[in-house]
Structures are given as structure tokens and as C-alpha cells.
């Protein structure tokens, strides 16, 4: 059976010089491969194995057909025999089901699944098990995690303020694609260039967000040109690492020292990624452009409903307006007797009469809140009682939003899409720039809204960032000094200057537009200030009767506010002599203020509009790739410096690799197609190597990030190429590669080394035993949640905020009032128990439990996590709330379903976490631990109760608290067990 090993298999070096020879044959076989390669390139053809097209090797001659289960084994067998090793016996079935279930789904098998598998006499039981796991939606979640590491996916921008970004739609696309077994070539094209595909679906556009996952900066003062370069560099480097296993970043500043990449190669590749219409400095408002809305199915349906509802309301309102003439006439008849009914609109959110100041405060008539008046306080008699005088130091200030009643605060902190109006009487005493009222953040941003007088003109600003994003208009007309004037401003929520009006003494003014480029939020938590703002332009003069409304006031209403009585004025005119405008104004006033039917309809419409606004605001967006309208030139940058452009370059593949085919475009789409061309020497190898790493802990190339000359040579070069060509042959079927690996005899071996094996191959490079290693951070936590019954298996959705020690973000972050993701607010309920890959990932302060267990911070692309084994991990497993709560809930399950005796329960618990039945010795240890815990907690009922209150889920058990507490400690032990957090 055992025959001579083919010489090729004996020596890796020789093997590769041979295959270098066969690579030349490849040129003959695939004439298109080096289509544009000149004779000169021919002579420079690299000798390094990884740059030569993988050719499908034949199976080694040395075989053990009794042992082998598939072709993978043939290659592994030859290699282990070459190293004088023989295969380990197969792992027992219990070990196998746990290994493969954790491997393919990241969750442990349930006891029912274990029992069913153990009882299955079918010789194909293992294959059926594998099929079940490959078809499980948990597969996509499991496989997404390493892909998110590669893609440097996170929920925050990373640099500096590190505020929230929303990329969960992209993350969910990845999970779905993995579950659907989207062929790896399509998986690649969609993520690198989904936006450029003809007739791209919304999902493909979202998929292109892969290369928007790079960190983005909006540090105040930072230079856009510098960061535009960094983003393009990140994309170039990440794409090279993920698809080609090349350390391209070395060629940023100079030609690569070890691998055949020139600096020109680097910038030619960068040219593909240098065409995104992005701002460089962006992200302070959430996603950085370009981005697209990414509504969920439910959101799309609800939006449609609301839009229809709104249209129906508008229809009914219009109808009522046309058929109200009789009622209008009747009302006019009664009007003479009801003068008092004509009042300024009373639905304001705030009304400061400024008639009195008591203990340095003045009252808001609407809320009853008292606003602080600082500085000298002088009141003067005005048309409406009294008004407040401002001498440059006086200021009226509402409480900061956080201290105010939430409903009031929210209503004054208008959203950009929300209409509002503000009105006041003013008595200016100078022509200087003076703030009447303002609700705005600190300079230089001045986010919010502001009414000012300047040179007697009324200025109104609705601002996102004063320096770049705001509406600013002013009246052409002016107000005279030393007189009272009524000023009203309205904004319709359109983000346009055309949606703004200013009235002086009830008359609508002609406006000059100074700025009209508002984008993004105008919301600030700063207080509303009267008589001064954040721009150092205090009011000097008098202010009275300040009112704020959350809607656009009509001209009629403004007239009323300004002390006129336009309604009575119109009514006084004979109906036949009224202008159309007067008629409309009167009718509108009647409908809005005195027609119950119209008002009821109006309330219904407002409710629908508010719901729609809330829904629109809740629809997430997702950052995507896009191409600039005109090509942005790319230069070689001297020393990699953004401000040292040298030679102009065009997009092209690195010279050492085959050129782009002639029929693909010179853009990202062409690049993506080039990467998945079956003749590309790297893509398939790099992809299958990572899958191998996922199941065996180490890749066939142990440096999966570096297939260059300094990287590790493959331990099984032929197997690597066989798998690579198999991936291509099967139409890039990645699940098939998983299937081949986990159904192989190689994978199935027991992991325990014999003494000889351990000494000869301590790291299992020759695979004469099965894989063994600590589980990934996410798997450890998910396993505990699953075993406890807490796990909520919901696929996708916005990221969640599980337990985290208080203060961690706040201690390092900037200001929760200015930016998102500055203070951690834990979720409640089911969101605490989602799989770990859904945990909100703030790059500057990632989840401490997962980070301690070895999850990377996702600032940059990570292909291999470094193994960890520290006391800090021990503390997480022992004490972290989720782990301890899981222990508590596992204890409940043990007592409820684990049987009636200690022995049965301990067996059940041990199987639930470690997968197997404990040995007699282990039973003794567990029983003793349980007994000791019982003694401790029986002596301290109070401790038991305290312990049972860890975590949000309520304690539910028929047993006594001390019994539940004792079992909780046993479960805590089981979650800390080396075997539990290890796959073997």
C-alpha cells in the first residue's frame, strides 16, 4: 500500500522549481494569460511560486485508500508520510460533532443534536451533519466574522472623535452572501465594484461598501487632501492583502524591498481606488458620503403606507377647503360678536412674555419652566406689558437640553427636516451685529438656528456648520433704531433657502440669500439663548414676547402676532370686493383656527407627517463606492507624501502579474474581474488558504497575509494548488471547499498528539492529527449564550450594545452633545443576547470583553488574530456580566431539564458545555465543587440573592436561591474550562 513518494512531494523547493517549468506550459495552455506581456516581460517572469498560475496537480502516488475520505487526504497523507508520521485515529463522534459544529456555525451542538448524531447508524451520518450545518443560517454569521476582520468593518469612523457610522446593511449583505453561497468570484466583484455593474441591484451597490469600511477622519482642522490619499492607500493595501496576500504597502514610499512590486505598481493600483467622490474630511454627521439609503423591508412597506396616508389626508384637506364656503360665511356672521376669538396662534412651544424677572429667572408660559436671566436686569414698559432690556451683558438662557424635560427639549431642538417659526418684538439701539435669539453650538461650528440684526437688517441662519453647511438669509429692508419692530422667521424643513421667510411687522420681506448649502443635522443640545448666542454678538436694546412654534406660521398668523388684526381687516371688506389673496387668507385662517373638521384632519395629517419624518430619520444608510464624474489624476507620490506628487500614472495591474484583459474596463470593475480571472495566480490560493486556516488554525501558507518572497512557503504546495483549482473548477463554490475540508479524514483525526508526534511536529504542520485551538472571542461568548438558553438567534439588523462597564467610552471620548458614539448606553432585553458579531464596534474603544479575548480593533485589515492566554481573559470569563448571567441561566436549565440527581445534572451540564460525558474523576471534582458551593451559599442566603440578580434576565427556578447559586458557580466553572473554550 505504501509506495515510494513522488520526488516532487519530497522537496518543496524542487517542487516549485518544477512547477515553475510547468508554468511556462501554462502560457501555452492559456494563450490569453500574458496577452500583453512583451518579450521583455517574458524574460523577467518571476520565479517565486505564488506569481505562477496554479496548475491542478495529480494526486500523489503514495496513498492509503482505507484511510482517505477524499482528495484532500491524498495530499495530506503523502506529506505526513514524507515526515515519517502516520495519521491519528479518527476522533470519536462526540468530539467530531462538536468540532465541526463550532467550526461551521460558531455555536456548540445541542444535546439533542449530539444524541441524534450518536444514534444515527447511517454511514453517511457525518456527511448529512455537515450538510445541515452548511445550510444553517448560523453558517453565514460564523464565516462573516473573519471577513469583517479583513474588511476592517466597524460601527465607528475610527479616527479622532470616532463617531458612529452605519454599515450594518453591508455587514448583513456579507452574512446573506455567505449563507447563499454566492460564488466567490461574484462575492469579490460585488464588493469591489458592485456599484459599477450594469443594472446593479441595490444589494450590489451596498456590497461595494467593502472599501468604504476604511477609517474616516473629521478632526477639526485636518486637511482633506491628506486623508483622501490615506483612504485610497488603505483600499489599495487592504484589497491587495485580502485578494492577493501581498504586502503592497511596502511600495508606497519606494520600490518593494523583497517582492517584485515597484512604487509605480503601487500607484497604478491605487489609481483604481482614487476615484471616489468623497470629501476627505467627513463623517461628523454619521455616514461619510457617498452613501445610499438602506431601508429594511419593513421600513420600505411602512414608508409606502405613510406616504399614501399623507396623500389621502391632503386630498381630504383640499376637499374641505373647497366646500367650506357656507361654514366660512356663517363664521363671518358671528365674528363681529367674537372679536376676542381672533388671537395670535397659541400652539407655540415656548412663550416668553418677559414681563417679570424673579430671582434671576423669567417664566416660559407654555412649560412653566423658569429661564435663567444673567447680567443686569432692567424691564421697561412695552405695548405688551413689559419687556427686557439688554445692555450687552444680559442674556436669557433655557436649561441645557439634558436637564430639561425631554419633550420640551426635543421640541426646541429642531431636526433639519422639521419646520419651525420664531417671533419676537425687538427694539434695537445700535446697527451692530446683535443676536436676538439663538440655539446654537459653540464656535466655530455654530450648529443650530439664529436670528440676528446687522446693519438694521434681519439675518436668519439655519446651520449645520457655519464654515461649510448652512442657510443664511437677510432682509433687504431694515429696522430703524429706537423703535419696536416685530420680527418673525419661518423655516419649512426643506434645507433650502427658498424654504425660509422673514416678516417685519407682519409684512413678508424680500430676502437676499447669503448661503444656501445646508446639509446634515442642525440639532444641538445647547440651550436657547435670548439676547446673545455663541458668536459673541450680544443684543443691545429691548426684546419682548418671544414665541417659538414647531410649524410654519401663515402670513395671517404672523400679522396677528405683529399686533395687527388682518382677519378683521379682511372681514370688513365686502366679500365681492376682496382680492383672491384676501379671500384665501381668510379662508385659511378660518379653516386652521375655527373649523373643527379641518382641524381634526390636520391633526391626522400632522401625525402621519411626524411618523413619516421619524421613519425617514430611522432608515439607515450605508456607505458605498462610486466613481467621480471626471477621472481624478493619480500621481506617484514621492516618499508616499500626499503633497509630493511626481509622475502621473494610469490604473494598471502590477507588472509582475498578468495584465488586465483587453476587454475589461480600466476601473474597479475591470480590476475585480481581473482578480477573479481563473488565470490569476493568487486569488484562489489566498482564498482557500484562509478557509484552511479557519478549520485548522494555521493556513497551508502560515502567513496568509503574505504570499510574497518573505512569506512562509506552503507546507502542502500541491494541496494548496489543488484546492485553488478546485475552487475555480466548482464555479468558486466556497461551501464546497469547506465541505471538502471538514469531511476529510485529515480533519477528522483525533487532536491529541502521540509523544513522538508532539516532539516531531509540535505545531501540527504535517497534519498527522486533528485541529486543536482556542475558540475565537465571539465563539466563546456565543457558546455561553447558547448553552444558557439566552442566545437570540436573529439574523442581521443594527448593531447592539450588550453589557459593558460604565464610563469606558466617556473617559476617552470628546463630547456626547456634539458627536455620536461618545457615551455607551447598554441595550436591554433581547439585544443583550445577540451573537457577538452584532456587537457595536467602536474602534477606539472596542468591546472590552471581546477585545480581551483577542478580537482586533478593526482599525486595519487583520488576516490572523494573535493567540492570547492572559489573566485578563480569566477575569472576563469569571466575572463579565454576560458570562456570569449565562452561568446563572445555565444553572436554571440544569435544574429544570438536567435530571433529578446531582450526578445526572452534572453530566448534563458538562455535556452542554464540553460536549462529552465527564470521566469518573471529573465527576468527583464537579461534585465536590458543587458541595463546597452549596455549603457556602446555604450559609449566606443574602449572597445567593445578590448573585441571582446579576444580569437583566430574572431568576426563575423552583429550587432554593442557595441551590441555584451553587449551581451557578458550577456553570461558571464550566464556562471557564479550558476544554469549553477550546476546539479539539
Amino acid at each position, binding site marked *: 500500500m505504501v509506495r515510494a513518494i513522488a520526488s516532487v512531494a519530497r522537496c518543496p523547493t524542487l517542487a516549485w522549481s518544477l512547477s515553475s517549468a510547468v508554468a511556462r506550459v501554462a502560457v501555452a495552455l492559456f494563450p490569453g494569460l500574458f496577452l500583453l506581456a512583451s518579450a521583455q516581460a517574458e524574460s523577467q517572469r518571476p520565479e517565486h511560486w505564488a506569481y505562477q498560475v496554479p496548475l491542478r496537480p495529480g494526486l500523489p502516488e503514495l496513498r492509503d485508500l482505507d484511510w482517505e475520505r477524499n482528495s484532500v487526504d491524498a495530499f495530506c497523507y503523502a506529506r505526513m508520510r514524507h515526515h515519517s508520521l502516520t495519521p491519528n485515529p479518527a476522533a470519536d463522534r462526540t468530539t467530531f460533532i462538536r468540532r465541526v459544529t463550532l467550526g461551521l456555525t460558531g455555536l456548540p451542538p445541542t444535546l439533542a443534536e449530539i444524541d441524534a448524531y450518536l444514534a444515527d447508524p447511517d454511514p453517511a451520518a457525518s456527511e448529512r451533519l455537515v450538510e445541515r450545518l452548511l445550510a444553517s443560517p448560523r453558517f453565514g454569521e460564523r464565516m462573516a466574522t473573519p471577513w469583517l476582520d479583513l474588511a476592517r468593518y466597524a460601527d465607528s469612523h*475610527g479616527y479622532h472623535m470616532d463617531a458612529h457610522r452605519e454599515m450594518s446593511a453591508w455587514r448583513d449583505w456579507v452574512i446573506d452572501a455567505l449563507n447563499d453561497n454566492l460564488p466567490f468570484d461574484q462575492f469579490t466583484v460585488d464588493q469591489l465594484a458592485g456599484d459599477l455593474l450594469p443594472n446593479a441591484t441595490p444589494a450590489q451597490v451596498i456590497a461595494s461598501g467593502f472599501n468604504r469600511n476604511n477609517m474616516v477622519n473629521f478632526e477639526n*482642522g485636518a486637511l482633506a487632501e491628506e486623508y483622501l490619499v490615506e483612504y485610497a492607500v488603505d483600499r489599495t493595501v487592504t484589497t491587495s492583502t485580502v485578494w492577493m496576500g501581498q504586502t503592497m504597502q511596502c511600495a508606497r514610499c519606494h520600490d518593494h524591498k523583497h517582492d517584485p512590486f515597484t512604487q509605480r505598481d503601487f500607484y497604478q493600483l491605487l489609481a483604481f481606488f482614487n476615484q471616489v467622490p468623497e470629501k476627505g474630511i467627513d463623517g461628523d454627521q454619521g455616514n461619510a458620503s457617498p452613501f445610499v439609503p438602506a431601508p429594511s423591508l419593513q421600513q420600505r412597506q411602512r414608508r409606502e403606507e405613510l406616504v399614501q396616508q399623507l396623500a389621502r389626508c391632503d386630498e381630504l384637506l383640499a376637499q374641505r377647503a373647497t366646500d367650506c364656503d357656507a361654514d366660512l360665511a356663517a363664521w363671518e356672521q358671528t365674528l363681529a360678536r367674537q372679536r376676542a376669538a381672533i388671537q395670535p396662534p397659541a400652539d407655540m412651544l415656548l412663550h416668553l412674555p418677559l414681563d417679570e424677572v424673579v430671582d434671576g429667572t423669567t417664566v416660559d408660559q407654555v412649560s412653566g419652566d423658569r429661564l435663567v436671566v444673567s447680567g443686569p436686569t432692567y424691564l421697561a414698559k412695552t405695548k405688551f406689558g413689559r419687556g427686557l432690556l439688554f445692555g450687552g451683558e444680559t442674556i436669557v438662557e433655557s436649561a441645557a437640553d439634558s436637564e430639561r424635560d425631554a419633550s420640551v427639549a426635543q421640541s426646541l431642538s429642531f431636526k433639519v427636516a422639521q419646520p419651525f417659526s420664531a417671533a419676537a418684538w425687538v427694539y434695537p439701539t445700535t446697527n451692530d451685529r446683535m443676536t436676538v435669539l439663538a440655539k446654537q453650538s459653540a464656535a466655530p461650528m455654530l450648529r443650530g438656528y439664529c436670528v440676528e440684526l446687522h446693519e438694521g437688517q434681519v439675518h436668519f441662519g439655519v446651520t449645520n456648520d457655519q464654515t461649510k453647511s448652512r442657510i443664511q438669509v437677510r432682509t433687504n429692508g431694515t429696522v430703524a433704531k429706537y423703535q419696536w419692530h416685530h420680527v418673525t422667521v419661518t423655516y419649512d424643513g426643506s434645507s433650502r433657502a427658498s424654504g425660509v421667510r422673514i416678516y417685519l411687522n407682519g409684512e413678508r420681506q424680500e430676502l437676499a440669500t447669503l448661503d444656501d448649502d445646508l446639509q446634515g443635522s442642525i440639532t444641538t443640545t445647547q440651550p436657547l439663548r435670548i439676547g446673545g448666542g455663541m458668536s459673541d454678538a450680544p443684543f443691545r436694546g429691548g426684546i419682548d414676547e418671544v414665541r417659538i412654534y414647531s410649524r410654519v406660521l401663515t402670513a395671517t398668523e404672523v400679522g396677528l402676532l405683529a399686533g395687527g388684526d388682518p382677519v378683521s381687516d379682511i372681514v370688513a371688506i365686502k366679500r365681492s370686493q376682496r382680492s383672491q389673496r384676501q379671500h384665501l387668507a381668510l379662508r385659511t385662517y378660518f379653516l386652521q383656527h375655527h373649523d373643527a373638521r379641518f382641524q381634526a384632519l390636520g391633526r391626522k395629517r400632522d401625525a402621519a407627517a411626524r411618523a413619516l419624518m421619524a421613519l425617514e430619520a430611522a432608515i439607515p444608510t450605508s456607505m458605498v463606492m462610486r466613481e467621480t464624474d471626471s477621472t481624478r489624476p493619480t500621481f506617484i507620490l514621492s516618499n508616499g507624501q500626499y503633497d509630493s506628487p511626481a509622475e502621473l500614472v494610469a490604473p494598471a495591474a502590477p507588472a509582475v502579474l498578468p495584465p488586465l484583459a483587453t476587454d475589461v474596463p480600466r476601473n474597479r470593475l475591470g480590476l475585480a474581474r481581473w482578480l477573479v480571472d481563473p488565470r490569476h495566480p493568487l486569488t484562489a490560493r489566498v482564498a482557500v488558504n484562509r478557509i484552511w486556516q479557519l478549520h485548522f488554525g494555521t493556513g497551508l501558507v502560515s502567513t496568509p497575509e503574505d504570499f510574497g518572497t518573505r512569506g512562509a512557503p506552503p507546507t502542502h504546495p500541491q494541496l494548496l494548488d489543488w484546492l485553488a483549482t478546485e475552487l475555480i473548477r466548482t464555479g468558486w463554490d466556497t461551501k464546497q471547499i469547506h465541505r471538502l475540508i471538514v469531511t476529510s479524514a485529515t480533519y477528522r483525526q483525533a487532536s491529541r498528539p502521540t509523544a513522538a508526534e508532539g516532539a516531531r511536529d509540535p505545531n501540527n504542520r504535517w497534519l498527522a492529527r486533528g485541529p486543536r485551538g482556542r475558540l475565537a472571542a465571539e465563539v466563546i461568548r456565543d457558546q455561553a449564550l447558547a448553552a444558557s438558553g439566552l442566545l437570540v438567534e436573529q439574523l442581521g439588523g443594527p448593531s447592539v450594545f450588550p453589557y459593558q462597564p460604565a464610563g469606558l467610552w466617556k473617559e476617552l471620548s470628546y463630547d456626547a452633545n456634539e458627536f455620536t458614539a461618545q457615551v455607551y448606553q447598554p441595550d436591554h432585553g433581547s439585544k443583550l443576547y445577540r451573537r457577538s458579531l452584532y456587537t457595536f464596534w467602536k474602534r477606539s474603544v472596542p468591546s472590552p470583553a471581546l477585545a480581551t479575548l483577542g478580537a482586533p*480593533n478593526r482599525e486595519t485589515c487583520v488576516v490572523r488574530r494573535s493567540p492570547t492566554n492572559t489573566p485578563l481573559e480569566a477575569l472576563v470569563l469569571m466575572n463579565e456580566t454576560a458570562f456570569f448571567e449565562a452561568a446563572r441561566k445555565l444553572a436554571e436549565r440544569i435544574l429544570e431539564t438536567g435530571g433529578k440527581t446531582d450526578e445526572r445534572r452534572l453530566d448534563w451540564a458538562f455535556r452542554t458545555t464540553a460536549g462529552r460525558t465527564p470521566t469518573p474523576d471529573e465527576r468527583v471534582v464537579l461534585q465536590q465543587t458543587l458541595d463546597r458551593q452549596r455549603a457556602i451559599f446555604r450559609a449566606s442566603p443574602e449572597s445567593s440573592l445578590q*448573585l*441571582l440578580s446579576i444580569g437583566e434576565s430574572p431568576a426563575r427556578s423552583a429550587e432554593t436561591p442557595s441551590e441555584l447559586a451553587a449551581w451557578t*458557580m458550577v456553570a461558571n466553572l464550566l464556562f471557564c474550562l479550558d476544554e469549553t473554550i477550546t476546539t479539539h
Partner: protein
Amino acid sequence: MPPKPYLLPDLQRLARRQFLGRASLGLGTAALATLLNPAGLAAANPPPTGSGQPGLPGLPHFAPTAKHVIFLHQSGAPSQIDLFDPKPVVAQRHGEEMPASVRGDQRLTTMTSDQASKPLTASPFEFSRHGAAGIEVSELLPYTAGVADELCVVRSMTTEAINHDPAMTLFQTGFQLPGRPSMGSWTSYGLGSANENLPTYVVSVSGGAAGDQPLFDRLWSAGFLPTRHQGVRLRSGRDPVLYLSNPAGVGQPARRAMLDGLAAMNRLQYEVAGDPEIKTRIAQFELAYRMQASVPELVDLSKEPEHIFDLYGGDARRPGSYAANCLQARRLVERGVRFVQVFHRGWDHHTRINQRLRAKCLETDQASAALVRDLKQRDLLKDTLVVWAGEFGRTVFCQGQLAGENWGRDHHPRCFSIWLAGGGVRPGMTYGQTDDFSYNVTMGATHVHDLQATILHCLGIDHTQLTYRHEGRDHRLTDVAGEVVRAILA
């Protein structure tokens, strides 16, 4: 009722066996573990030597002058022109436009690049000479001035970064972009721990009012080095180290009983699986257990004598304050911690710098100086390099209108001032010069990489030789630059 002892003596022995001998494990952060047994340490003031996790073979490369580093990083960038770099010419020409020739082609942040007027703005603070060396220090730092003879003030620091994130990242990791290991991690990687029961690298953070410049985990990250070299944050409050405390209701006996069982179970598994990682894990759980007792004791400053609080100032009684963290830094160094990183936030004074800089100095001056004095009086200063630095400097011209009190100063990378003390650095000297406007370095230009090279040099490390292969390239803290500033070495 006391817990029952194990029935099987051999299992108990099995469980215990692992904890007795000194485990030869990859401790590193593990180390944290111990901060142990300070009573013993108090008796023997000199830091423990001899034991501990070894560093790389061949390290240190030469005899170190410092065994420890305490880096007092003033995040936000303190104004050199108001603290250490007085400029009489600016005082004379106050209000004049800054000469264009001085700026040259220096890039500005977008916060002032569009500001039409860039008037020279004199420091409103008085400077005077202190100590035998006559080091010039602003009136805002009277305590620092009091230890002038211990200080080496470097006025000629320079960097390329003009924004906080890249500048801080450069200072701590030698590179403006994320992904590289921090200075403390390199030290841990190269030198190992001074005591097997101690962490090599501890980080604390103070300041942090709303609006202070943010910090990031990456500033103490191990980057691509093994994660055990990562800085361990010590926080104030119930859990000085994350997850240190047992859940409510779990007392020490219950934890002990659980760990006994865990160790026995792991030991049984080791006999079957033979994986040395299991032995490591057993020991790590025991270290974690010991930390639960030792760390709270370490961070408990209440037993420090009154005169120590007098020295550091009353703020040192407030957990989490800069002063408390300075005092804690001394305690850490006493216990053999190699690299202590103290971050203090809030020095980014774009507006109202007069008022805000004064407040910041009031908050930090006494404690910074106290740390130097305290180390000196314990004879630890000779082995401990203390560095006080921001990430860049501030502009000689004002940001905003010069009239009134609202103006501040923008970021300035070309020159800034720091000080060093102890650890083999020459005391009582001022090094380097800037031009009349504190704008350009005219003598002794010291790049951040040069400072890093010098810090490593004091630790006995040749910065060009401490490297790590990552993605095919040998990386080092100083990237491809850095020269030791020999002129400031004693």
C-alpha cells in the same frame, strides 16, 4: 459551615500543584496579576530585580541608565510660548502681522488657514529663571520651576503632524496611522517584565471634560506585537482593572472553591490532551485570582502619609485625578513596572487660552513636580526617566480676534517644548533653540522619533535593533528614522 475539603487528596494535590512553583509562563500583562504583596515591597524600597519574564535575547543592548519610564502625556498640546519658550521679540511686536518669511511654506490647519490676520501674540505670562541652571519657566508653573535643577527642557521638539489624532499616534507608536505597537509595548516586548508578578506597561487617563480631545485604545495597543504586551489600563472606581471584582454575592470562598475545581478539571484535561496551553491557562486563572486582592491594594492611596499628599496636592486624594495618577505612577515604579503612561486631557486651547491654560497648569503643575521630587527623595529618579510632553506646540499668532480674552492659539508642529528628568538625562539644562517667534527650530531639532530613540537608549535599547517582522517587513518604533539626542544625556 466551612467548605468541605476535597475527598480525594490526589486531586487536590493535582489542583494545587500548578500554583506552587513559579510558572514559567508568558506573563507580560499577566503580570498585572501581581502588583502583589506591596507590604514586602515597602520594606525593600529598591525595585525588585532578577526575576521576571525575560525580554529578547541580547537585550538590553547596553547598560541602561533608566529601568523605568513615566511618560506624562499632556494631550491637546500645551503652549510652549506660554510655558517654556519665552519670546521678548514677540512681546515687542505684539499685534503686528506675523512675517510671511517666518511661516514659509508651513501648512496650517483649516482652523486658521483662512484667518485673514495672523497677529503676533505675546504671552501674557511672566517668565523667570530658576535653579542653578537658570531655566526659564513661566509663572504658570511655579512647582515645576521649583524642580528646575532636575529638568532637561527641550525647546526644539518638532513633528510633522498638525492634528491631534495623527500627532498622538505618532508620539506613542512612531507612526501617524494606526496599526503599530506603542512605545510601552515595544519596551515590554524587548525587555520583558522587571518582576514576574508585575505588568510591564500600565496606563492611566485623567482629565476628560466634555470637549477635551479624545484618546484611543490604539495609543497603548500592542499593534502587531503579541497582545500580552498591550498596556493595561488602571481606572479609578470599583474595578481598577476591568472585570476584576467578583459578581455581587460571590465572595472569596466561593471563588476559591470554583477555581480549585477548575484547576483540577483543567489538570485532568491536560493529562489527556497534553497541550501546554492548558498549563498556562491554569496559571492565568490563579494570577487573576491573586490580582483580585493585590490590585485594589495597589490603587488604594489611603495609606500614603500626609506629607505625600502635601507634596502632590489635595487633588491626589481624588481617585482618577492627574495628581492621584502621578502618585500611583510612583507606586507602580516602586513595584517594578517598567513603563507607566499617564495621559492628561484638555490642553487644546484654541480659545480663551489665558484662562484655560492657567486652569490646566493649576491642575497639573504641583503633581508633575511632586513626582520628580518624590522619586528623587526615594532615590528612584536615577533609574526612572520622567517625560512631560504634549503632541505638538501652539502658534505664536492668535486664533480668533486678538481683542478681548477670547483668542487662543492653533496647532503648531514645527516647534514645541517638553521636559525630561532622571533616568540618565542631564539635569538642569535647556536644550535647543527656536527663532524669535517660537516658530522654527534654529538649533538642536529633535523629532518625535529622536525622542523615542533617546527614551529607548536610556532603557539600554538600540532603537534600530529592536525590530519585529510583520507582513514581510522588519518594523521598529522609530520607523525609518530617529537619532539618539546624545547632548541631553548625562
